[in-house]
């Protein structure tokens, strides 16, 4: 692949209230001059302003969003919704970032070199979200009231994910869609209402992992503070085969569940022993 065109954004001043920056995606930047990009809308509470009011913009755009990379610098912890609905291309964020980063992403890649706030990668439909720090609550989860959350794609979090990550994740075998989360450690209710999502945790997990899981695979290489009473131990395995074809070796206790959803279930929880 040829070298990607690159646009650089730098936050000029801290906003008083969070910015709603859903306009920052390769799709919106593609084929636009720097002056046009500066004019793209951004909400600061109820004021409708533009990207140029808060960011300095440099670099060169490309007509094809898939060949465009956006690099963002400055403290972005008050900037929400970067990469919303993104479809192709790449975003690199060299800072902590606000809520909803990469929500509804369809394809492409987002790298956060810092921590992400809540709802990172919520309702993800494809692509890859990499967070080289901790993430907030509801990573890759469904928004309130949705029965189908993350449908495809991969989220990698180096550090900890907050509560209710991968809420209502849903896989599809016919269309070969396997929503997957890799993380360092996790808070309570990891993978609640899971409908086929895959979760691999390198470290420890708080209570109620896999609550109400009807199908899916959760692998925990550390400890679980309390396994739900509705999970039943099936035995021990030396290898776990993830639905996406990946193999994880190690000694694991295999549990089936959640049996509060049904007596027979394909849901599995593996905990290292």
């Amino acid at each position, binding site marked *: 692949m040829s070298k990607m065109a690159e646009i650089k954004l730098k936050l000029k001043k801290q906003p008083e209230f969070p910015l709603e920056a859903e306009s920052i995606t390769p799709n919106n930047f593609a084929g636009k001059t720097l002056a046009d990009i500066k004019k793209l809308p951004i909400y600061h509470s109820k004021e409708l302003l533009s990207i140029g009011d808060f960011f300095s913009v440099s670099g060169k755009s490309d007509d094809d969003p898939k060949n465009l990379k956006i690099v963002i610098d400055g403290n972005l912890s008050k900037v929400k919704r970067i990469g919303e609905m993104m479809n192709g291309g790449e975003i690199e964020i060299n800072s902590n970032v606000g*809520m909803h980063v990469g929500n509804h992403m369809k394809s492409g890649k987002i790298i956060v070199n810092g921590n992400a706030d809540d709802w990172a990668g919520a309702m993800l439909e494809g692509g890859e979200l990499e967070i080289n720090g901790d993430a907030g609550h509801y990573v890759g989860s469904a928004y*309130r009231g949705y029965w189908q959350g993350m449908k495809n794609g991969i989220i990698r979090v180096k550090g900890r994910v907050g509560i*209710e990550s991968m809420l209502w994740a849903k896989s599809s075998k016919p269309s070969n869609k396997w929503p997957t989360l890799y993380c360092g450690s996790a808070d*309570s209710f990891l993978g609640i209402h899971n409908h086929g999502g895959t979760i691999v945790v390198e470290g420890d997990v708080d209570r109620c992992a896999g609550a109400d899981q009807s199908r899916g695979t959760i692998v925990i290489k550390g400890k679980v503070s309390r396994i739900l009473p*509705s999970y*039943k131990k099936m035995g021990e395995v030396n290898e776990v085969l993830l639905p996406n074809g990946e193999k994880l070796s190690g000694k694991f206790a295999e549990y089936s569940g959640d049996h*509060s959803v049904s007596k027979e279930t394909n849901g599995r929880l593996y905990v290292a022993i």
Partner: protein
Amino acid sequence: MFSSNPSKHRFEKPRIRVKGEFKEVSWDEALDKAADILVKAKRPLLYGFSSTECEAQGKGVELAEILGSILDNTASVCHGPSLLAIQDVGAPLSTLGEYKNRADLVVFWGCNPVHAHPRHLGRYSQFVRGYFRKDGRNDRYIIVVDPRNTNTAQIADLYIPVNPNEDYELVNAIRATLREVDLDEKEISGVKKEDIVKLAEKLKSCNYGVIFFGMGLTQSLAHHRNVDAAICLVRELNDHTKFLLCPMRGHYNVAGANQVFTWNTGFGYSIDFSKGYPRYNPGEFSSVDLLMKNEVDAALIVASDPASNFPAPAVKNLFKHPLIVIEPHETPTSAYADIILPPAFAGIECEGTAYRMDKVPLRLRKVKDAPGECLSDHDILERLLEKVKEKLGE
């Protein structure tokens, strides 16, 4: 309530704070100042609404839309988690009359109606004689699940002392037991496995059961997931018998606040109008979360006392910015307000509509005049709305 009207504790005229002291002013002056604050603010918060009539709540929604503000009610720190759970998994609810006339098994989970809803037991759930429950208390089997041995627990037929914050695991174990799964653990959340099996049998074998649940589920760890699990339990019990549930709402019209907000905006609480249309996301637009992050620059508090209920850092941030309250008494919130607008009590001093906890609307009547210059919440908000429109040039 009646004896406090009129009393020396009531505010009878609008007040504004001048150099740290409250000064009584005319309605025009107070409302003009209030409108100024709201119009100038970039991210105002409108909070409360649960102890006032529906007509005033409707005006609150209108004001929030025009201001592009945050709109929230006390469900945010109360039964909001119940609403979240209901949006996730639905809710089998009924009116209180049904429970009174039919229920032969009543579960109080994480609530203490003897103290919190003293008329509930006598009117709907325990001692009252119902159409099919002619012998009142003797025709009902009462189960209380609570970490504390409350007065409600003491008059129950079966008291289950669950470990604090472990309700989710207990509900989860009951659900698995209902599916004839033999649990691996011997004791769950402080309850023995054989007791859970007996409890599941008891729940299945009634003719008509109901779970009343309170803050013990919604505001202990796991919050809405406790309610989520309780709803799923009720759904599964309906494979065996008739079972329903009912949240024990607190403020007299908090159910109405959710109804009015929902029919106007589509959402029950935690609503943001900053983009001109309503968006909903508890955790992002809920009052406590916004105040903790200091993302609000003015507040209008209607019929509520957040200073007594919110976490201290949130209250500190609330007091940093201009604060308008519609409040009849001195409260920790009104003591720090910049403008106090004194209302009449709906149902005593003015008319209105209120929703009962089971979402039945009731007419509130007026029995006597309000003291001093007090206006109804509806009239105050309507006049404030006119002032705001004037200033915005609409």
